[in-house]
């Protein structure tokens, strides 16, 4: 019987495989201490939207991406070329497990969120995907640069060549942007900034320690005002719109995940109780979504321009 023969061949091949695999094994240890070991460098990767945003610019193209919203709304993926990549999830907790299985993935790369002790995408998706392939990835920490470097290391292990001109150019552009940012903050040592999210119910002031890019900004010389009392998880202080003048920064950074956040802020009559808002010293805060040098450079440039235009003595 031909199928029986095929089957025994397959079994034989499977038995031989571990021996051959020692030639080029792939291992990756994530921050929780779990090590994934594969017989070969994986090429069929399923990536979460965050991991895809980290890996694609480095030349590692996953075969499929799962996101928690329509892919067009995923801020991290904007501007990236997604042609030929299957989208297997566009709603929270939903993933097309059959499409995923048909792609025969070797590894699932997500991002680990230590504060929630969870992989990005949520438990249901991880539970659905984990029988197909081991899950691993980088961990969110206190710097986007470190995060990108972790992606560089991961991408290199996956066979990426970081010396390719377009990849090197991205990094060089970022370094230039960072230098400009540092020069701008150095020129205005008294300048203070406040990062916020605006809802109709209240103004939410971000704690620097809750967002990696804010910690980067802080490390590069920007004096971010830290709220006195953050919520139980250390992300935000909720300010009633009656108390928007509690902090008086020279520059306001508004969460730019959604354009409507700034519109909401501008619609509040007491938004302008902050002198910086009154003076128009408002710029974008790329909140929580940066995963690559290209996007980081262009976002940094916007903040740098705003710092250069701001009056460091406004709030005094």
């Amino acid at each position: 019987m031909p199928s029986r023969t095929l089957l025994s061949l397959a079994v034989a091949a499977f038995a031989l495989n571990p021996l051959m695999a020692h030639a080029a094994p792939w291992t990756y240890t994530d921050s929780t201490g779990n090590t994934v070991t594969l017989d070969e460098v994986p090429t069929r990767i399923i990536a979460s939207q965050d991991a895809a945003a980290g890996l694609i610019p480095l030349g590692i193209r996953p075969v499929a991406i799962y996101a928690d919203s329509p892919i067009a709304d995923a801020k991290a993926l904007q501007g990236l070329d997604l042609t030929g990549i299957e989208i297997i999830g566009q709603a929270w907790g939903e993933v097309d497990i059959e499409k995923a299985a048909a792609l025969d993935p070797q590894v699932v790369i997500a991002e680990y969120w230590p504060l929630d002790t969870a992989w990005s995408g949520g438990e249901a998706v991880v539970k659905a995907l984990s029988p197909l392939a081991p899950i691993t990835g980088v961990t969110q920490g206190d710097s986007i640069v470190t995060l990108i470097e972790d992606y560089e290391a991961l991408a290199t292990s996956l066979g990426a060549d970081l010396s390719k001109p377009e990849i090197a150019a991205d990094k060089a552009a970022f370094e230039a942007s960072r230098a400009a940012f540092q020069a701008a903050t150095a020129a205005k040592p008294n300048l203070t900034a406040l990062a916020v999210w605006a809802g109709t119910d209240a103004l939410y002031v971000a704690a620097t320690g809750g967002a990696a890019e804010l910690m980067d900004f802080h490390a590069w010389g920007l004096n971010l005002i830290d709220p006195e009392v953050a919520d139980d998880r250390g992300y935000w202080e909720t300010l009633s719109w009656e108390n928007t003048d509690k902090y008086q920064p020279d520059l306001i950074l508004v969460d730019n995940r959604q354009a409507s956040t700034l519109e909401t802020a501008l619609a509040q009559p007491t938004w302008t109780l902050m002198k910086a808002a009154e003076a128009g010293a408002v710029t974008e805060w790329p909140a929580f979504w940066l995963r690559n040098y290209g996007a980081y450079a262009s976002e940094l440039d916007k903040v740098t321009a705003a710092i250069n235009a701001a009056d460091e003595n406004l709030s005094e």
Partner: protein
Amino acid sequence: MAEAPATIVTTRGAALALGLLCLAVAVLLVAFLSITVGARPITLEAVWTALTAFDPDSTDHRIIWELRLPRTVIGLAVGAALGLSGAVLQGATRNPLADPSILGINAGAAVFVVLGIAVFGITQLSAYVWLAFIGAGIAMLVVYAVASLGREGATPVKLALAGAAMTAAMQSVTNAILLTSPRTLDEIRFWQVGSLVGRDMDIFVQVAPFLAVGILLALASGRLLDGLSMGEDVARSLGQNVGRSRALAGLAAVILAGAATAAAGPITFVGLTVPHVARAVTGPNYRWILPYSMLLAPILLLGADVIGRVIAPPGEVQVGIVTAFVGAPFFIALVRRRKLASL
């Protein structure tokens, strides 16, 4: 003997009028509280100077004028609208459980607002007004139409169940949209809760014409409702056009409830409970129940809002939550205590 009833009526009338006056004073008192109590401590003196001699450079004065006054005005208007619409609905349907929130009006408004955000990218509160208005109107008409089919008309249970079912159905449509659009979810979660925060005078101006028409229609329908409350046959024998009375009163209720939901988001139980309190004071006379409801409801709503501002510092609890927690126990007590089958 012949004069006695007339005397009773007049003394009772005078007492009720006096009560109405007291309520008006109470409304002013709550409005005063609403202007003076808030997340930011502002002295009474500062409040007074803000009202009498506004200084645009004073932060306290700006808070009073730009936040607390609009919030108070909208609270008063929304309260009056909800109270009246509840009273009118209960009278027109002769149904003690008729209430805008129980009739699916909130869920209908929510579906339209969610569609507006998800499909048309609308994000500002002032634009929600129209969407909410249309959605509320459609939901209420469908619920009422479905429930009033059949011989005995819109009975309490039929209305309540049709409304609850409509709510559940609309909710699942809303959820489907929200699940695939986190952007919409992020916007709607602050609207859906029912709140007076962040509403400026523009919103009041938008809904004011509807409120004015609705209030006039509702107050004018007192005689019709009194006729209906004697039973359709009696009303008919008195020369009343029952169908037209119902339609007119229903129209007033839809306009009022729609405008209230449009301005403040879905707020439960105010329209349901207030008319019952009013009725306990005035007796079954709609010419009194209506103005009493119109004044009692803002006291409840604005009072709940003030409570919400102080119970969970540094944050606030939205008025919709407070009214649900005040109103639901009242509703349950009502169901336990009274025979609700008839009014």
